[in-house]
């Protein structure tokens, strides 16, 4: 009886989409190699039975050439052969390269079922594959599928219990490629197509001049679109809801509670000029929800919508190629741009995605740079909200300072850390037109993740701070740190409370700066300090889990130094 199904295949062939189809478990999929960084498990129900489905990270061969491949190979070798099958997912637009793994799996004596995925796209490319002929030549069942639309999934399910073991003698690498040449020659027919606009764009985006031009255009367009969607959501939806619907209710509550009561202090906070001010009152029902839902959430939505588009179109690997050169100078290679971009959403998925980098040294440099110099979207939204009200010039200034820190710190780390940076070696996927359904599903998944993880911490953080403020317990703390805050950074001593809050949630921390009535220079320095000092505690924890205590301590030392040096320098240099 079959108890487990393993999904194996080359990177970026749609394993995650098939996984979602089989198990109903929603996972994030994109158009680049290495989206899935850990084993995903789910269950498939056929009648009364439950079969475990395991989505293996993408691999080009059944040989342990990298960490993720080692895991996949070891896992498959320890299974009992009559209790599992491997569904080998094959990209039909690229049959030849995919069959290398297929033949290796069959030669290993594993029970294999082939899903010929993306068959609709193959047709567009003028690729016709005779799946029966292919099945004959391989000796295993072959089912054409299109995971995105769900085509062929039922047939695939029907074949699961019919998989037979066959024997195919192992051959040398060279012989295997020769065999593949023969198989592809018989099972696949190519019809000639003229170059399409898409192919022209694909070519142009990996060439020196046109490539950079496209990359700059895309970057600027992305910033503009994120800003536009974010602002529109705020001015058209969230602000009207808060000011027109929610505030009248709170006014009544405020009256009923009476300004002097402790509960009023917790829930509503302080009245500013006799009225509730969502930005400054600092109450559990006022500032806390306003920050999360009216200042940050709109940007979460717009950022992840645009990131999802970039991921699914397939622009990111091309950016990686263009930036390889520069990133080599700071000890990384081109692929590191993907964790960095994910880190702009939230540092945690960014640090997790550094698993795709080969060496521990690279992972340390990338993770440290992400923790220090890549502000998450929650923090960025607050920076725009706070500094943007002075002038866009200051917002750009923050990014400039962070970029300089990146270059300087990266160069220093690259110089002093032992080891070398491996070379870039990756496949570039074709451009694809994203499916709106997949895009929205992914967006929904990420927003849900944000709400579940952020909301409770925000409420807890504001509650804690309010109690401590009420009991005046911060006074001692602010007293000791006052020389540092004032002497070095030129900030009022109360700012330390906001900086400490940054350890829980960066967005709330910026929110706590708002009632302090800082000058523009002070605000700028405080915001930069929040960005470059410790990342939030959740990122800290992931850093520790991924890279170990020693690396975390080293990184923490770097963070403290960078914060002190940058804050001090800005205070000296700015007028």
């Amino acid at each position, binding site marked *: 009886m079959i108890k487990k199904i393993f999904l194996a295949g080359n990177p970026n062939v749609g394993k995650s989409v098939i996984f979602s189809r089989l198990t109903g478990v929603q996972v994030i999929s994109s158009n680049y190699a290495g989206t899935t960084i850990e084993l995903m498990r789910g269950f498939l129900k056929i009648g009364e039975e439950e079969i475990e489905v395991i989505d293996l990270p993408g691999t080009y061969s059944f040989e342990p050439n990298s960490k993720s491949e080692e895991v996949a190979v070891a896992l498959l070798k320890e299974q009992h052969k009559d209790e599992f099958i491997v569904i080998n997912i094959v990209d039909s637009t690229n049959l*030849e390269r995919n069959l290398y793994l297929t033949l290796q799996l069959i030669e290993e004596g594993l029970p294999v079922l082939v899903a010929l995925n993306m068959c609709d796209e193959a047709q567009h490319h003028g690729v016709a594959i005779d799946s029966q002929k292919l099945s004959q030549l391989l000796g295993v069942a072959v089912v054409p599928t299109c995971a995105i639309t769900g085509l062929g999934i039922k047939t695939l399910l029907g074949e699961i219990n019919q998989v037979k073991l066959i024997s195919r003698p192992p051959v040398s690498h060279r012989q295997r490629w020769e065999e593949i040449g023969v198989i592809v020659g018989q099972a696949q027919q190519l019809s000639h197509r003229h170059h399409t606009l898409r192919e022209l764009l694909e070519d142009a985006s990996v060439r020196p001049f046109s490539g950079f031009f496209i990359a700059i255009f895309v970057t600027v367009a992305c910033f503009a679109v994120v800003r536009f969607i974010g602002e529109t959501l705020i001015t058209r939806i969230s602000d009207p809801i808060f000011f027109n619907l929610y505030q009248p209710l709170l006014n009544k509550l405020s009256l009923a509670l009476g300004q002097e009561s402790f509960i009023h202090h917790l829930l509503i906070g302080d009245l500013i000029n006799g009225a509730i001010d969502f930005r400054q009152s600092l109450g559990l029902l006022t500032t806390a929800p306003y920050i999360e839902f009216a200042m940050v959430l709109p940007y979460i939505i717009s950022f992840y919508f645009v990131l999802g588009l970039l991921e699914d179109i397939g622009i990111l690997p091309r950016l990686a190629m263009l930036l390889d050169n520069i990133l080599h100078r700071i000890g990384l290679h081109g692929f590191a741009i993907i964790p960095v971009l994910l880190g702009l959403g939230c540092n945690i998925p960014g640090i997790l995605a550094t698993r795709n980098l080969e060496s521990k040294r690279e992972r340390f440099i990338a993770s440290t740079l992400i923790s220090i110099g890549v502000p998450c979207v929650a923090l960025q939204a607050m920076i725009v909200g706070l500094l943007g009200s002075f002038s866009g010039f200051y917002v750009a200034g923050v990014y400039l300072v962070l970029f300089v820190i990146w270059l300087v710190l990266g160069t220093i780390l690259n110089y002093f850390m032992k080891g070398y940076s491996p070379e870039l070696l990756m*496949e570039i996927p074709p451009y694809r037109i994203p499916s709106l359904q997949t895009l929205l599903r992914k967006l929904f998944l990420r927003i849900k993740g944000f709400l579940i993880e952020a909301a409770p911490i925000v409420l807890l953080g504001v509650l804690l701070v309010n109690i401590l403020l009420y009991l005046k317990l911060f006074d001692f703390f602010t007293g000791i740190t006052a020389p540092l805050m004032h002497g070095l950074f030129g900030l009022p001593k109360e700012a330390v409370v906001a900086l400490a809050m940054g350890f829980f949630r960066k967005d709330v921390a910026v929110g706590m700066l708002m009632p302090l009535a800082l000058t523009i220079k002070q605000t700028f320095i405080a915001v930069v300090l929040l960005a470059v000092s410790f990342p939030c505690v959740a990122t800290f924890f992931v850093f520790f889990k991924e890279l170990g205590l020693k690396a975390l301590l080293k990184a923490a030392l770097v963070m403290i130094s960078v914060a002190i040096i940058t804050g001090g320098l800005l205070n000296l240099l700015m007028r």
Partner: protein
Amino acid sequence: MKKITLVQLKEKHKGVILDIPQGAVLQNKLMSMGIYKGREVTKISYIGLKGPVAIKVGRSVMVLGYGMANKIIVETQ
């Protein structure tokens, strides 16, 4: 017939791979991606300034770092 590196190969030109950098792990990895001695590849682009090289292997586009591409020798017309 000339023997040149992948970096030197002109854009849109074809070349047959003659030599691949040393190292069993790297060679295996390249092999599994379809890059091996005797394989014909088409150069797509070189970013310049010691940046990476893009080549077409079969139907896929592969990007190789400069150090690697500079050690891959191809034979071309």
